[in-house]
Structures are given as C-alpha cells and as structure tokens.
C-alpha cells in the first residue's frame, strides 16, 4: 500500500502510463497490426484512401476511447456503491443496475424508434434508476440498514427479472434480436466516435459531482453522523452519490451494453494500493478501470481469432474467480 503523498502521486502517474500503454495497444493490436508512426499519421493527416487510416479512425480509436471511458465509469460507480452500501460485493453489475438499463434500452430499440446511444441513453438512465430504486427498496432490513447478503440477492433477483424480460421481448421481436445480441453481451466495438460525443456531458456532470462530493463520501464511510458534521444530511449525500452511479452506469450501458465485474474488482485493487480515502481512491479507480477494460478488450481479440469475443464475456471470466475469493474471505 502506498502511504505517503509522494508515493501516491507516483502511483497515479504510473496508472496514467498504464492507461496510455493499454490505449496504444488497443489501437495498434488486432487482426491487422498497426505501427506507431502510422497511428500518429492517421491522427495528424488523415488520408481516407489508406486502409490503415480508415481502420484506426473508424474502428480502433472509437473502440479504445469507449473502453477507457466505460471502464473508468464502471469502476468509479462500483467504488461509490461499495462505499454507500458498505458491502464489498456491491457493483453496478451484481446489483442489477446494468440489467435495468439494458432492459429499458431493449424496449427503446425494439418498441420505440430509438437507435443510437444518444437517443436511448435516456432509456438507459431511467432503467438504471428504476433498478436502483427496486434494489434499495427490496434490501432494506428492519432498521433500514442494508444487510449484505440481502442486497446481493435482491440485486440478483432484479437482474434475473430484467434479463428474462429482455429475453422475452427479443424472442417476440426477432428482427432486433440479431442487432442487439452482440451488444447485450457487452461490447465496445462497432461504434463511431460521433456516437460518444453526445454522451460526454453526462459523464462530465458525474465527474463534477464526484469532485464536489469526495469529502462527503469519505465521511459517509465513517458513519452517517460524520456527514452531519459537514453540514449535510446523510440521505442527501446518498441520493447525490446514487445519481452519480446512475449517470455513470446508465451511460456506460448505453455505450457498451452489460459489462460486469469491472465495477466489482477495480475498487478492491485500488483500495489495496491507495487506501480508502476517496480523494485517491476515485482517480485510481478511473485509471485502473480504464486500463483493465482496454486490456480485456485487446485480449478478447486474440481469444478465438478471427472471431471477436464480446468484452463483457472476458470481464466475467476474469472477475468470477475474484468474486468467489471475496465471497469466501468474507465472514459468512
């Protein structure tokens, strides 16, 4: 664990280097490898006649940007959820937030004329909100505290519900099935950069709220009374942090579908390295989350070539052993 301020700054800088390396790997490696000079050239003077340039600008670059953005968002959302519920197993995937967002997107795509992420991101946000409310409502115990196993089970039940609704809808409406299937599994490929731009304000709002609330999140970890000392009610803080989670998870699902386990694993890694102080934890989560998803995406291209494996499958396979480790370690 990095205890001193200087070593933590060095750690974050290293994280930045890791993200940059993973980003470069994501752009350059694949069925056609691309040399660094060509990458730079494609950015500086784009030549639509060259195949390598087209691959970089229309496929690799958006893919890397989305992977980094979604990875960072899911990791931060997971960290905040773990703080709020005081449950090490909390994350947008496990607690059903992703599934809720996904179901609403499936409804938007198959029943309403909404087809780009910028159009159906609102459906995703609404779905994330509904799922979050359901899980909180279902998992509150007698004194209003969130019991650990209950939260997880309620999340799994809510996930099962939304997934089976989506399945039903897709079977009835088979046209959408083929277009949505790959995305359902969680994928960062096949999107253009122009699709990401309209969603940036949402990520921006979430980031701003994170910065404003970072001290309150620290206080919340110590207990609801500590938040009062900062002059705000614990309920208000939880609502605002919940809003951040919904913004981050909902927008991520709109961009990349259901990608699980990033929000679960990364906060634990970040906490192990940087401690529990959110001023360090959240940036560390962002960097590590972005790196993890970028690397998982690179790996997914080589698992069974020439077929692209959905990156959501990769993260689930990486994440499960970790989840089981956590479940075993917990005194349950």
């Amino acid at each position, binding site marked *: 664990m990095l205890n001193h301020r200087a070593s933590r700054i060095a750690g974050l800088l290293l994280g930045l280097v890791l993200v940059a390396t993973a980003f470069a790997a994501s752009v350059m490696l694949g069925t056609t490898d691309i040399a660094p000079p060509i990458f730079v050239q494609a950015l500086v003077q784009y030549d639509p006649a060259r195949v390598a340039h087209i691959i970089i600008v229309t496929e690799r670059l958006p893919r890397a940007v989305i992977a980094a953005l979604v990875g960072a968002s899911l990791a931060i959302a997971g960290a905040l959820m773990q703080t709020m519920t005081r449950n090490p*197993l909390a994350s947008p*995937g*496990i607690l059903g937030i992703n599934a809720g967002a996904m179901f609403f997107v499936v409804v938007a795509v198959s029943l309403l004329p909404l087809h780009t992420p910028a159009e159906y991101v609102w459906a995703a946000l609404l779905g994330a909100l509904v799922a979050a409310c*359901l899980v909180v*409502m*279902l998992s*509150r*115990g*007698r004194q209003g505290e969130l*019991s650990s*196993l*209950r939260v*997880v*089970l*309620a999340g*799994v*039940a*809510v996930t*099962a*519900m939304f997934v*089976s*609704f989506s*399945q*039903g809808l*897709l*079977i*009835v409406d*088979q046209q959408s*099935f*083929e277009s949505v*299937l*790959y995305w*359902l*599994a969680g994928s960062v490929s096949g999107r253009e950069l122009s699709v990401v731009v309209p969603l940036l304000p949402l990520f921006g709002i979430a980031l701003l709220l994170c910065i404003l609330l970072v001290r309150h999140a620290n206080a919340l970890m110590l207990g609801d009374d500590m938040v009062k000392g900062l002059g705000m009610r614990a309920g208000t803080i939880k609502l605002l942090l919940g809003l951040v989670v919904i913004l981050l998870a909902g927008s991520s699902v709109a961009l990349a579908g259901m990608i*699980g*386990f990033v929000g679960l694993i990364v906060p634990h890694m970040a906490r192990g390295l940087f401690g529990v102080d959110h001023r360090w934890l959240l940036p560390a989560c962002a960097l590590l989350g972005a790196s993890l998803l970028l690397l998982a995406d690179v790996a997914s291209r080589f698992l*069974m070539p020439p*077929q692209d*494996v*959905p990156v*959501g*499958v990769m993260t*689930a*396979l990486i*994440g*499960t052993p970790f*989840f*089981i480790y956590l*479940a*075993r370690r*917990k005194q*349950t």
Partner: protein
Amino acid sequence: MTHSASLPQQGNDTAAGHTTRPVRLSALLALVLLASIGLSLSLGSFPTSFDQVVHALATPQNSDITFIVWELRLPRILLALLVGAALAVAGAILQGIVRNPLASPDVIGITSGAAMAAVTFLALFGTGLSIHWLPAAALLGALLSAVLVFSLAWKRGITPSRMVLVGIGLSAAMGAVTTLLIVISDDAAAMVAYVWLTGSLYAAQWQDVFGMLPWLLVAVPLCLTLARHMDAMALGDSVAQGLGVNVLQSRLVLMACSVALAGAAVAFAGGLSFVGLIAPHIAARLVGRGFARLVPVTALVGALIVLYADLLGRVAFLPKDLPAGIFVSGVGAPFFVYLLHRNRHSPYQTARQN
C-alpha cells in the same frame, strides 16, 4: 396465512394448525389441476371442442383430433406439469437448505450450469449428434455446477450464505460462456439456443415425459423422507445437530435431490426461471413452511404455473407459439418483487448465520 413468512417453527403451529387443511388444500389444487388439463387439452391452434377431446381421449381413432390430442397436446401438457412440479420442489428444497427464500436453482447456478452445457451441446453438435442427448448434457452440466458450487464454498464446512454467493459468482461466469457460445454460433442456431434458454415446451413428446418422470418419482419421495431433518435445520445448524441430525449428510442428500430435479427440468424444458422461486412462496402462504406439507402443495402450484404459462404461449398469440418462459417470468418476476417487498421486515428474510 399471514404468518407464512415467519420463522419456520412458528409456521408449523400457526399457519396450518390442523393437519386436515393441507390435505384438503392439496385435493382442491389437484381438482383445479385436472380442470386446467381439460381446458388446456381443448384449446389450441386447431379448434377442438371439449366433447371431441374427451371422445378422442376415451376412444383413440385414426383421426386428426386423436393425433392432436394424444401426440401433440397431451405430452406437452404432461411435460409442463412435471417440469413445473420439479422446479418448484427443487426451489423449496434449496430455500430450506439455504434458509433464505430468495434462493432458487437459477440463483445458485444450477440452471446456468445446465444451460451452459446444453448450449455447448447445441453449438458443438447442433447438427451432428442426435438431439436426444441434449437432456443428458444438461443434467451433466447441472451436476457439475452443483459440485463446483459445493467445493468452492467449502471452507471447514459449508455455510448457506457462502454457497449462495459462490453460486451467484459461478452462474455469472457460466452465463458469460453461454452468451459467448450464442454469439459465435450462426444466427439460426443462436435463436434456437436463445428460445431454449428462455424455457419452452414446444414439440414435447411422450419420450420426454417418460424421461422426466423417473427423476420426480425418485427425488420427491427421497426428500420427503428427510422432511424432519429439513425442519430441524431450519432452526439453525447447531439446533439440528442437538436434535441428532447429521447436518452435512442431510444437506448433501437434499442438495442432490434439488440438483436432480432442477437439472432434469432444465434438460427437458430449458431455463424456465422464477418457478422455483415463487411456487414455494405461494405454497408457504397456503400451508406454512413445514417441509412435509410444503412439498406436495409446492409441486401442485409449480405444475399449475407452468401449465398456464405454456397454455398462454400456445393460444394467446396465434399463429405464434411463444416460449412458456416468457410468461412465467412476466408474471413471476413482478410477483416475486412484490413478495420481497411485502415480507421485507420478516426475520426469515435475513439469512441467519451459524
């Protein structure tokens, strides 16, 4: 009725104070079931009247109606009943073992293990091997996943909550593999696998019915012989041990029953979710949590749920024949959420630790 979700030992006393009630209730449910079978037999894409159906049943002739009733509708209905009963009992057993009403074969990873095996089978041998091997593959998957859950949850013994958490994690991984297999197979095969995952009784045959029946005939009586152990374990492991129950052994046998029932059901009808979750709840509301009286009622309720879901899928959206799973989860999921919300303050809801 109102105490259905309270502590099991209270449930025994208050919810069904006299023993005639479960018997009468079971008889009533069985009557409803018979009537439903009659209704389901006479409805379908080919119009048949009840008289014609009875006639065809009583004196089979070489006619269209006889064929429809005997070869198409009856096996499908019977399979729906058996599968519903099996899933419901599997859920009741699991909820009892884990002492948490949120557990079910789908939550703990048994269904997803069977589903993964079945989809692997479809993806690898979709055209080569006979489809009759599919149930065997699914059963094997269910068994393997149960063994995996058990061994990964083992840490100087098994605690119910650790088993649930490990099951949740494993089912996520197996679900990911299933998705991967669907994504990499071609579109037609993917749709077949997807419909199968949702749970469908389409094209059920007599051999499916006879393949399903033995599992119920073995597992249900076996788990009923352990009913006393189950009720004792509901009070906590130490209490059960004090009462002379070999907790680990009983838990293993009961778990094996649950796996066999859920695995067989998934093998013959795909991933019908929520039956194992809600049928025991409804049954517990009617007769309380005492295991011996819970099981028959649970089985009847589960059978009714799947029967009506399949009937809806067959006749409500003609000419489409929709998978029963859509309706089971369409009704089951909101009902389950309602149940959870309603019972959120009851002590039985929080899994007690050892």
